């Protein structure tokens, strides 16, 4: 039997452990960024890279004078935005995965299960199609994806809604229905675009190449604020994990909090999909790894998942960018590795249900 002191000490130790892991992941992330920015076809000296980053961040252009312009452009305009975008998108996808899983009370749920990703993709593909064939000026892809995601969410919750109550199974079924319709819509647009189909296909595969500071800025505003809101309400999310009836008697207005989390997580997903196309399984693999190795307490899980998600997507993107001769879209990489993992979890979960 444990004494009071032991229990409270253990709690403190566990808090410290989570803090250490957080700090460790942050340090790892920084080391990673500095390593990865040095990798690529163009050979640029480490010292030059540090100078470029420092000079740009500190607004001291004279530091850059001795370095040739191509190197500055490669590091500052190509590699760094891509790296930071990868981290933001990875973190965002991981956090929205955590949130959707808790809301649907299903460890296998994520942005895809309820159709939000497909909705965002449909919005974006529609914009690309219109830009190619219908109108003269350019429709912005990002807001269109955003609108697509939100409309899908509204539609899915309308279908799943019964007497003002959203049950998990209803929601997942509605998500499947809506996303299969939207997938057909995407296929239709692809067939209709004939020879120009590559623009859509490449976007859909999910890629982080050619990301600019514009993407970084957009991503950081929405994704970081979204994650912070999720962290602020994370203990309510813990209570929601116990069920709707139970949350009510633990003082959480489940309808209100669920809506809030649905909107925030969809927003994060929409921004991620707009920036990088469909990147699958990050939102599933990262939370799952953490739930079984560290904790399922969302107060710890959300921030750690954000860091680990960022780290993993950066790793996957670097792998697809540097190590192979042909550049593979990162969405293909994550699905190739994440898919089998999904199957593993699925079988393991099935074995646990008696």
């Amino acid at each position, binding site marked *: 039997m444990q004494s009071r002191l032991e229990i409270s000490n253990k709690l403190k130790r566990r808090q410290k452990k989570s803090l250490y892991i957080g700090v460790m992941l942050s340090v790892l992330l920084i080391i990673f960024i500095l390593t990865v920015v040095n990798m690529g076809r163009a050979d640029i000296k480490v010292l030059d890279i540090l100078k470029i980053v420092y000079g740009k961040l500190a607004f001291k252009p004279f530091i850059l004078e001795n370095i040739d312009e191509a190197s500055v452009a490669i590091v500052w305009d190509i590699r760094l935005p891509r790296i930071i975008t990868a981290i933001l998108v990875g973190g965002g996808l991981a956090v929205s995965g955590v949130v959707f899983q808790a809301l649907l009370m299903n460890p296998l749920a994520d942005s895809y299960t309820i159709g939000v990703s497909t909705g965002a993709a449909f919005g974006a593909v529609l914009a690309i199609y219109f830009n190619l064939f219908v109108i003269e000026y350019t429709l912005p892809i990002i807001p269109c994806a955003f609108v697509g995601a939100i409309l899908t969410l509204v539609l899915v919750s309308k279908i799943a809604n019964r007497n003002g109550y959203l049950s998990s199974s209803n929601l997942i079924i509605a998500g499947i229905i809506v996303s299969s319709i939207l997938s057909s819509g995407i296929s239709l647009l692809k067939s209709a675009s004939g020879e120009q189909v590559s623009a859509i296909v490449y976007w859909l595969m999910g890629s982080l190449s050619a990301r600019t500071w514009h993407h970084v800025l957009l991503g950081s505003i929405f994704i970081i604020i979204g994650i912070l809101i999720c962290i602020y309400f994370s203990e309510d999310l813990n209570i929601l994990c116990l069920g709707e*009836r139970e949350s009510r008697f633990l003082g959480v207005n489940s309808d209100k909090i669920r809506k809030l989390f649905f909107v925030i997580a969809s927003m994060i997903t929409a921004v991620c999909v707009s920036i990088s196309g469909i990147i699958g399984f990050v939102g599933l693999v990262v939370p799952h790894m953490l739930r079984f190795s560290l904790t399922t307490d969302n107060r710890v899980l959300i921030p750690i998942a954000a860091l680990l998600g960022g780290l993993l997507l950066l790793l996957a993107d670097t792998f697809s960018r540097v190590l192979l001769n042909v550049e593979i879209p990162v969405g293909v990489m994550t699905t190739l590795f994440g898919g089998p993992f999904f199957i593993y979890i699925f079988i393991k979960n099935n074995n646990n249900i008696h």
Partner: protein
Amino acid sequence: MFKINDLWFRYDSKYILKSINLTIKKGSFISIIGPNGSGKTTLMNLLTGNLKKDTGEIFFLDKLLHAYSIETLAQVITVIYQKANIQFPFTCLEIVMMGRNPFKQRMKPLSEKDMEIVYEAMEVTDTLKFTDSLITEISGGEMQRVILARALAQEPQVLFLDEAFSAMDIAYRLRSLKLISQLVKEKNVTVISIMHDLNMAYAFSDEVIVLKEGKIRGTDCPQNLMTASFIKEIFDIDVYHVKGKGLIVMP
């Protein structure tokens, strides 16, 4: 504590509850008994505010029940359901600590005093040994004890039990019922319980509410109400009284 005036409730066109009038006093152990489909759970869901009534009025502490916010109600009322459907591997300690949620502020850790209450609740329910166990990996009866600990950590004034101890072995079920009656006597807690076990309902209740086909067929102390002939009329089963001790259901 509760006062119900002429309450009616229906699903679609079928009335589940018909003209319910009821007063529930503070500090008593009340059991709702009746056959399946008699409206016990519906009545409880209406009293907890989980369902909205069709017609009639429910007062809680002299104020309409639906006028209370969820946050306020959670500081006074809690419910233990038969099944806790928890999909995520929280530790049992984390689960019991969530009982303090109605009293804590966001982003702040539980105070020493809160932790004291949590510890106490786990001690009396004999769940300290599960502190680090995952809620998804313990048995149904053990889980019900952990959930009971969470409810106790909430220090409710009104505790609803919906077959809350059904998966516990007989020793723990008795122990839990004794614990609850102690709360009623010492801390003036009001307990409203749905129980299928007539023996237990007879032994522990101060008052029994008998429901059948959506109507209240009687409310009184078990000694007066649960006579062999009345039970026969309601459940169509035979029971025997052991003088001064209780009631036995004979198969």
